[in-house]
């Protein structure tokens, strides 16, 4: 542990909430043991993923050989996936659903989180408990009634019909995460904004939000992925390829019989759909560390 060198925000960044440039302190001073740990973490994360990629490059009988390296690697599974018009539709649907849900959830949740973290309000404990209970309720118990209601009000088998419930189940995670982060931001900054005559809402927009960028980016990734991966509501509330998202479309990939898991194509599709998420992470990960000046200003 003694080798860990925490990366430190420097004091001069305090005045610039969005600090684009950082000095990577200690860049060359990492202890070899840290590198060992880096490698271990990479291996732990990558080995099952490697197995998935490995499976996606096999077809037919070689799927059952358990070879560590495919002896006759083939991209056929990937071709099959891309030639499947329903998969491309599903990819479009998933992107729309995840982007819209994440955006709306972040806006609503940051409002609610600010009120909970900063403003005077009655019954905060009760509100927090209620919010939590929404995600805690087992989805299998509400899927069937939701199907009927959605059908009656015309939301069944539409993208909007998926965005609304996914938003509902994403909000608690977003509200809790953001409340926790907003709480960390020192009050002194808002107070000085108040001195300048700002209203609480202006303080929220001008002071809190910019400082909370790491929290927002983290929340965005978490919400996006959970929305992207959700299956039960997706399969319950859709019926046609026009509104089906990716996890359902993958489940519907055909093998040769109802007993046959098309391992190769499922694996290939799973690898393909990590790409948008990798892009998301690459875009967001800079943000995770950019607005972290909150602590510094306290002095």
């Amino acid at each position: 542990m003694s080798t860990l060198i925490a990366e430190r925000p420097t004091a001069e960044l305090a005045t610039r909430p969005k600090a684009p440039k950082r000095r990577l302190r200690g860049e060359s001073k990492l202890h070899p043991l840290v590198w060992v740990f880096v490698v271990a973490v990479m291996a732990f994360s990558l080995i099952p993923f490697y197995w998935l990629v490995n499976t996606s490059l096999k077809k037919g009988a070689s799927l059952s050989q358990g070879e560590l390296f495919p002896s006759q690697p083939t991209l056929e599974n990937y071709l099959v996936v891309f030639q499947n018009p329903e998969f491309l539709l599903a990819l479009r649907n998933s992107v729309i659903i995840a982007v819209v849900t994440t955006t709306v959830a972040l806006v609503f949740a940051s409002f609610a989180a600010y009120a909970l973290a900063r403003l005077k309000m009655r019954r905060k404990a009760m509100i927090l408990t209620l919010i939590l209970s929404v995600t805690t309720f087992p989805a299998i118990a509400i899927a069937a009634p939701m199907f009927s209601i959605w059908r009656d009000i015309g939301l069944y088998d539409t993208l909007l019909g998926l965005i609304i419930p996914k938003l509902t189940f994403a909000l608690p995670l977003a509200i809790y995460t953001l409340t926790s982060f907003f709480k960390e931001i020192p009050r002194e900054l808002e107070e000085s904004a108040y001195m300048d005559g700002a209203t609480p809402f202006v303080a929220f927009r001008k002071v809190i939000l910019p400082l909370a960028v790491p929290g927002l980016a983290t929340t965005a990734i978490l919400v996006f992925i959970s929305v992207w991966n959700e299956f039960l509501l997706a399969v319950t509330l859709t019926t046609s390829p026009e509104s089906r998202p990716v996890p359902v479309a993958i489940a519907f990939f055909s093998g040769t019989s109802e007993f046959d898991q098309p391992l190769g194509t499922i694996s290939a599709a799973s690898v393909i759909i990590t790409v948008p998420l990798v892009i998301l992470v690459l875009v967001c990960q800079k943000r995770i560390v950019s607005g972290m000046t909150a602590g510094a200003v306290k002095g």
Partner: protein
Amino acid sequence: MATKTLQPGRAAPAKTSGRDRAERRLAFRMTAPSLVIMALVAAVPIGYAIWLSLNQYSVRTAGLSRFVGLENYINALASQEWWAAFGQTFLFAGLSVSLELVLGTAMALLLNLAFKGRAVLRTVVLLPYAIITVVSAITWQTMFQPNMGLVTNVLSTLGLPGGDVVWLGEHGYAMAVIVMADVWKTTPFAALIILAGLQVISAETYEAAELDGASKWQTFVNITLPLLRPAIVLAAIFRTMDALRVFDLPFVLTRGANGTESMSMLAYTQLRENRLVGEGSALSILTFLTVMVVSVIYVRFAGGNIRDVAKEEQ
């Protein structure tokens, strides 16, 4: 030290009551959209599930039902299956969440280090979280498949123990695979939340500690960990909630055999497979209550700033 300032109490200066009222109104307006959406979507199905749990619906005669009050709950609580599933679920949650928090903290510290290729590491570490749960379950299943799985192959090639074990067919081993699969997939979730928590710890805090002559380990234990507590508790709440409702992993990997049946699986079997709708709804609600109690205990006793929010009486 900085602990105090980082968890601000209610140090707000006295304000006029007019401003108070305005602030309350604003708070109401800001929470309303979220609460309304959640209420609209969740309230009716949840209320309906509660109603179902107080009845029994005949699986033999069409349209026959009877009101039984709490009988479904009493029967569930008197059954061996429920308590077996209860114990197995808590075992799973305890093992997987503690591993995830320890590994997640270590990963977060690593991801917070400054070195070339950090962006790559961040992306790689997040990959497992991006895999759909069912696909990850299938991947782990094939990895541990006797004779043709990655793990069993490597173990037996290297002559290590475990190569000839039918992992998913034995007590203990089956739970181990399920825990590993869960840890693999969701440690990134914990790591990400904890990483964001690390970001708000100020450099001055560390410099002050360094001046005091604290070792790195002392700094970690005495400063970093306490300051990370809100983030760790937050990760723990959501991970525990999910772990206590685990369904996909045991459903795909073992179908609940070998001591891996979870509370959610039991509810699923009654509700979906057996269509004992009253009994199944009661099991769902018992699962829900169990998870709620655990979550509230976390919020109240584990600390973190969610507790601070909950305790505010304004």
